[in-house]
């Protein structure tokens, strides 16, 4: 029988999770490798479709895609809309500041009174706004926009997904920005693969395959390939 091909919605939040490889013009990254391996194991092919983060859940619930494989945290409100697989990878927010600022911030309290920036759609917006520590929390569309403004001095610090920030700074982009090593994330979450609530059969298959791949080291191999540790 012809292998079933499922549509996978993803969003290029950035290297290493998912991104557009401009050399090959394909979506690459941890989540793509992972869903491809899962598909191999569970017996379905995948076709990755890029879209804006904010369109992912709507596209899934309106049957335009079958799977979300993106750097999407498993959260309560999201779980009311869709189902998630077991956690794939766990991480939190990273804090970055201009290189000229050598202070070692450990928590939000140390940043009190500064203007900070954060990416729209991430889980970090609400805690920052609710903390009441900052005169202004600026909301950005993309991480590079935040880094530009840290560079330009419009904001004193930025928050974004740690692995993405780490990877990009490691690659030598934005040399004037540094990651604060000692900072403890305010939110730690796990990303998972999302499916429609009505698709419990698919979810079962994905979870089974995911467990198997964790067991046999495939997951670890993928993570290492993209410079992440378990």
């Amino acid at each position, binding site marked *: 029988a012809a292998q079933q091909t499922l549509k996978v919605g993803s969003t290029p939040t*950035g290297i290493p999770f998912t991104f557009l490889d401009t050399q090959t013009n394909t979506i690459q990254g941890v989540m793509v490798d992972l869903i491809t391996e899962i598909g191999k194991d569970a017996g379905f092919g995948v076709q990755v479709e890029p879209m804006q983060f*904010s369109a992912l859940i709507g596209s899934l619930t309106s049957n335009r895609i079958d799977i979300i494989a993106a750097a999407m945290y498993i959260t309560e409100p999201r779980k009311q809309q869709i189902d998630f697989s077991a956690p794939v990878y766990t991480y939190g927010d990273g804090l970055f500041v201009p290189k000229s600022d050598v202070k070692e911030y450990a928590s939000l309290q140390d940043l009190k009174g500064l203007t900070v920036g954060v990416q729209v759609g991430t889980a970090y917006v609400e805690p920052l706004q609710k903390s009441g520590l900052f005169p202004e929390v600026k909301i950005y569309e*993309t991480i590079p926009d935040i880094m530009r403004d840290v560079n330009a001095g419009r904001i004193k610090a930025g928050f974004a997904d740690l692995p993405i920030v780490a990877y990009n700074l490691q690659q030598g982009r*934005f040399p004037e920005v540094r990651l604060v090593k000692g900072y403890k994330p305010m939110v730690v979450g796990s990303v998972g693969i999302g499916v429609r609530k009505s698709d419990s059969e698919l979810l079962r298959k994905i979870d089974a395959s995911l467990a198997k791949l964790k067991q046999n080291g495939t997951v670890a191999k993928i993570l290492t390939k993209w410079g992440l540790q378990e």
Partner: protein
Amino acid sequence: MQGFLKDSIEFLPILLQGLRLTLIVTAGSLVLSTALGLLWALMRVSGVPVLAGIAKTFVNTIRGIPIIVQLFYIYFVLPDLGISLTAVQAAIIGLGIAYSAYQSENFRAGIEAIDRGQVEAAQTIGMGWGLTMRRVILPQAFKIVLPPYGNIMIMMLKDSSQASTITVAELALQGKLIASSTFQNTTVFTLVALLYLCMSIPLILLVGHLERRFGRR
């Protein structure tokens, strides 16, 4: 500069893919908005109060809601009512409806600019409303309507970028994808701006030509 060129060569093929969809969405919604706009305009000038009222209400409502919100409804909310469209279909319909309001105002202005004497001359040779429109008013309104029509085309071309919010992988979305993957925002946005400009320039020249040709008397 060196880097800009290298990056451009790498990014352009991806952006050009998006350009194809930009053109499809623009062309599709242009056709739809023209047809719908003409319908509203004819209803407005029909002299039938009910029709005029419906058209007016519709046009005003549409004009008051940002396109992005209209697109969202058509793509994400209509499926709840059992109408599920592809992203490109939804973009064409959404932009088409949104712009039909502008088209309608443009057509109406063109129709109303025709001298009353033309209608009267048509009536005295026994023409009814339909014949008067078809043979006398619309052919003349055409010339008046053309220059602003060109401007609407330019606006649509640019506003097609809003289709990116409902997953249409057109130029702007491709640009965003590259930007967030490579962090080369400046390069990407410059390229995107240049590509839009390249598509607009023929249109702008066309409008200028039309204005010289028809605008003055």
